[in-house]
Every structure is written in structure tokens, then in C-alpha cells.
């Protein structure tokens, strides 16, 4: 595993980084946004998860509409991140903590998000990151979360990356005060 800088301003203590797994051609942040901007990949993904789509958790939605909804959500997320990359660090009052909020360590379930639900659009895209400092985060995984828990195979695989990242940071002497944070569009 290595790290990729997504946007790290010069002469700053802050910045957004991503993990880059050894067997992958790109870092996890880039990979996530490539996938959620790819209608073919999304169509195939939602076809495989069609039972979850029809389960009513997010209300019944067709595969085609799920693809378009995801792409719209990704676009909004990227806009917020892009604007932050351009201007965010110039404003002392702002910081990456405005984009990434702490998650409870117990389990990654919707119930835990509900405290701050008003600030979360009813979206299903997630970017999880580890906070290293006030303005310094490492993105570990991105996911499409269609169900209440993380037991689906595709989500469990993403959580494994989180564990790998924790080990990697420990091995390299990098301390992290909090466990996991998630992107929230305010």
C-alpha cells in the first residue's frame, strides 16, 4: 500500500490523501469516482443488486434510475470537493472537517448517522476517511450503500481495506486520533 495526494496545498499541514493498493493501477479515491461516473459499471452493479433496490429501503427504483441518481449524487459530491480543493484552504475558518464528519466506531449503520441526518441528503454514496489531523484526511474506501448494514459482499470488501489501512498506518508510525469519518454534503 502507498498514499496518493488528492489535494494537498503547499506549505500547509492539511490535505486530502487516498490509499493506493499495490495491485491497483490507481488510488481508491480516483477509482471510486471513475466507477460512479461510469454508466456501464453502475448498470451492471445495480443489476446484481436489484433485490436491494426493490427492497424498499430507498423506495422502489429501477436499475436505470439508480444509475442516473448515482451519477447525479457523484456530481454533487465532486463539485463540493473540487470547490474545496480550489478555495477551501484559503479560508482559515473552513477545513476538511466541514466535509468529513466523525462516525461512531461501533458499526457503520444508518442509525448512527441519524443524529445529523438533516445535513445528509438522502444519498447512498459514501466516502470513508481516516482523520489524521484537523485538516488532514486519508480516504480509505468509497461505497454505494443500499442497505442498513455493511454485510453485503461489496461493502464488506470495502471495509477490509479500512482494516488494511489501519495496519499500514500503525506499521509506519502514523497516529490517528479518530477511527473513521464520512463525507457529508452540507
Amino acid at each position, binding site marked *: 500500500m502507498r498514499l496518493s*495526494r488528492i489535494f494537498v496545498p503547499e506549505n500547509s*499541514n492539511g490535505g486530502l490523501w*487516498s490509499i493506493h493498493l499495490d495491485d491497483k493501477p490507481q488510488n481508491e479515491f480516483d477509482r471510486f469516482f471513475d466507477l460512479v*461516473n461510469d454508466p456501464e459499471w453502475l448498470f451492471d452493479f445495480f443489476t446484481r443488486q436489484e433485490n436491494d433496490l426493490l427492497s424498499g429501503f430507498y423506495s422502489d427504483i429501477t436499475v*436505470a434510475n439508480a444509475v442516473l441518481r448515482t451519477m447525479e449524487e457523484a456530481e454533487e459530491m465532486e463539485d463540493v470537493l473540487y470547490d474545496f480543493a480550489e478555495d477551501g484552504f484559503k479560508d482559515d475558518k473552513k477545513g476538511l472537517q466541514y466535509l468529513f464528519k466523525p462516525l461512531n466506531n461501533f458499526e457503520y449503520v444508518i442509525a448512527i448517522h441519524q443524529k445529523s441526518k438533516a445535513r445528509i441528503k438522502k444519498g447512498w454514496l459514501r466516502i470513508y476517511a481516516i482523520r489524521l489531523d484537523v485538516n*488532514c484526511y486519508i480516504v480509505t474506501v468509497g461505497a454505494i450503500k443500499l442497505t442498513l448494514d455493511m454485510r453485503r459482499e461489496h461493502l464488506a470488501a470495502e471495509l477490509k481495506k479500512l482494516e488494511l489501512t489501519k495496519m499500514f498506518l500503525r506499521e509506519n508510525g502514523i497516529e490517528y486520533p479518530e477511527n473513521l469519518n464520512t463525507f457529508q454534503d452540507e
Partner: protein
Amino acid sequence: MNDLQEKLGKLESQTPSNWRQSAKHGRENREWLNKSAATAVKVLEALKQQNLSQKDLAERMAISPQQINKIVKGQENLTLETISKLEIVLGIQIFSGIVTHGKSAA
């Protein structure tokens, strides 16, 4: 540079992130990219319903499978000719509401 940034820098990958460039491209070309993605979804839906592969579609349209793959990836700035061919071959309407020669395509 503080200790943390120095430590992170030592662990840096050789492959730089391309995200900012991609995001910029997405913002600058949003109007047609969204239409291209919507077209891709209609094509993928029709292929699934008609049990056709991308290769089948390529043969029917007399274009390469690579071109079809670009279309379903939603990154192709499609010509009116290609859109019309897709509509005829798959029997679908990609853009509705356009009136041509007095006929509404809605």
C-alpha cells in the same frame, strides 16, 4: 512541512491522482456528458431487455465494438447520425420531444 506531512510524503505512490483533472473536465463538459450518460443508460437497458450483447449491437450498426463500449461508458460526444442509428437498430427513442418534419418524436 510538519512531521505528519513529511511522514505521509515518504509513503507517497509513484502514480499521481488524476481526479482533479477529471472533475474539471466533468464540470466544463457537464451538459453533453449528462446527455451522453442518459443515452448510455437507455442503450444498456435496451440491450438487457432484448438480450443483446454490445458485440451484437456493433454488428447491427456496422461499427466497432470499441465504439459501442465508448457509447455505454457515457464519454462519447455522439453525432446525430449515431443517435439515429441507435434509435433505429434498438427501436428506442433517445431524445423525445423533438419535432422533425412535422412529426413529434415524443
